[in-house]
């Protein structure tokens, strides 16, 4: 029981991650894949932040003259970087989607594959 209470947040996070991963693999629509990627990455951020939390702690911004318990700042720093990386990747992916739509007239993976299969080798 204690285990369930202590690990509940990790498990939900894992479920969220897998939801994102599932969308990325299973959905044909390219935009939906990127939405899945966003979901997946946000869940990873959550995993990190969960690790850094200390019960009864407070945000790691020093308060003058007091010695409260602070949460761990290291995961925060790492995730700040990861958030930036995530949005950068999505931006590039979305730009590619726009171009793919201009070239192929569709953003459904199977339709694109059909068009490509009909084309002669370069």
């Amino acid at each position, binding site marked *: 029981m204690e285990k369930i209470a*202590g690990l509940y947040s990790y498990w939900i996070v894992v479920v969220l991650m897998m939801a994102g991963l599932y*969308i990325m693999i299973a959905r044909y629509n390219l935009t939906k894949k990127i939405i899945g990627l966003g979901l997946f990455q946000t869940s990873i951020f959550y995993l990190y932040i969960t690790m*850094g939390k200390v019960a009864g702690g407070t945000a790691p911004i020093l308060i003058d003259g007091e010695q409260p318990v602070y949460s761990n700042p290291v995961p925060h720093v790492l995730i700040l970087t990861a958030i*930036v990386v995530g949005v950068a990747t999505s*931006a590039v992916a979305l730009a590619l989607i*726009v171009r793919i739509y201009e*070239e192929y007239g569709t953003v459904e993976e199977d339709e694109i594959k059909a068009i490509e299969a009909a084309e002669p080798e370069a």
Partner: protein
Amino acid sequence: MEATVANVLLTFLAVTAVGIIMLRDLLAAVILLGAYSLIAAGAFVVMDAVDVAFTEAAVGSGISTILFLGALSFTRHDQKPRPNHSWMALFLAVAAGGLLIYGTLDMPYYGSATSAAQTNPGLAVRFLEESGSEVGPPNIVTSVLASYRGYDTLGETMVVFAAGIAVLSILGLKRRRPGENAPLDAPGDKTTTLVVNSSADDGSIASPNEMKRYPRQRHRVLQVVTKLVIPFVLMFGLYVQFHGDYGPGGGFQAGVIFASGFILYGLIFGLQKTRAIMPPSALRILMCLGLLLYCGTGLLTMVLGGNLLDYNVLAHDALHGQHWGIFTVELGVGITVTGVMISLFYNFASKRSL
């Protein structure tokens, strides 16, 4: 109480995720993804990660949503109906998830203060106890981000820069209107997708005919409000930039907020007017300058005899040096991010107006 609030928010997240999987309308999925980021950011506040919450709110539900909307405006926004499951994908996801859950079984519990991560004297403990006297800023996340792990942040800034120029090279320059060269079904009536879910009961507001009947509203209220708000947004951006040492915030968040002032202007007054105020060539220079400022700080520390990004050598007093170093570096990040974010908006919004 803390843990309860966190868990409730976590449940909200799970519900939203299910919604995102189920919905076939991409626009709805994007709106929900924005909500998802908002909830996540709220939960980050509850879990004491205020800087992360700040960034996730600004990026996840702000910039990301706008980028997605921009991309959707080029493409069609409904997902084609398909057989709704893929056993292979399900198997992979479940396998990975199972492995992860197995891994969590002997992890330290949520909120544990005695876990390896919390008690490592080299990292967490050192940052909490020494950073005030070694680096200075009360916000430990800023100290670690800009000084202890400043090299990571250098890489991060380059990632932002890379995304900026990648989108510029993929989308930029010559634009074609969508559908002009579309071999398959050209998107004739995109507006119909707006009413996909409103067919039965109350399609009253959203019917395409009605939208056509009032194509151009004047939106005077919006225009006035925007003009009033924008100076405060920019001011707030500056505050976040320079107050990052003492509270949540820093260069990255400030850049996003500063850029969102311009984005707001672009949304209300159109891209052409925005480009007159902030031409793309100025953005290109901004992007480069920010990164060069960061690299330049690195070079300067080396010229002055320290290691790369060792701010101690920048002034006679180590703490002063750190202060100057963090200040310049954060400024560089802020400038690059502002440039890149506005440039991303230009690229994704420039459908008809160019």
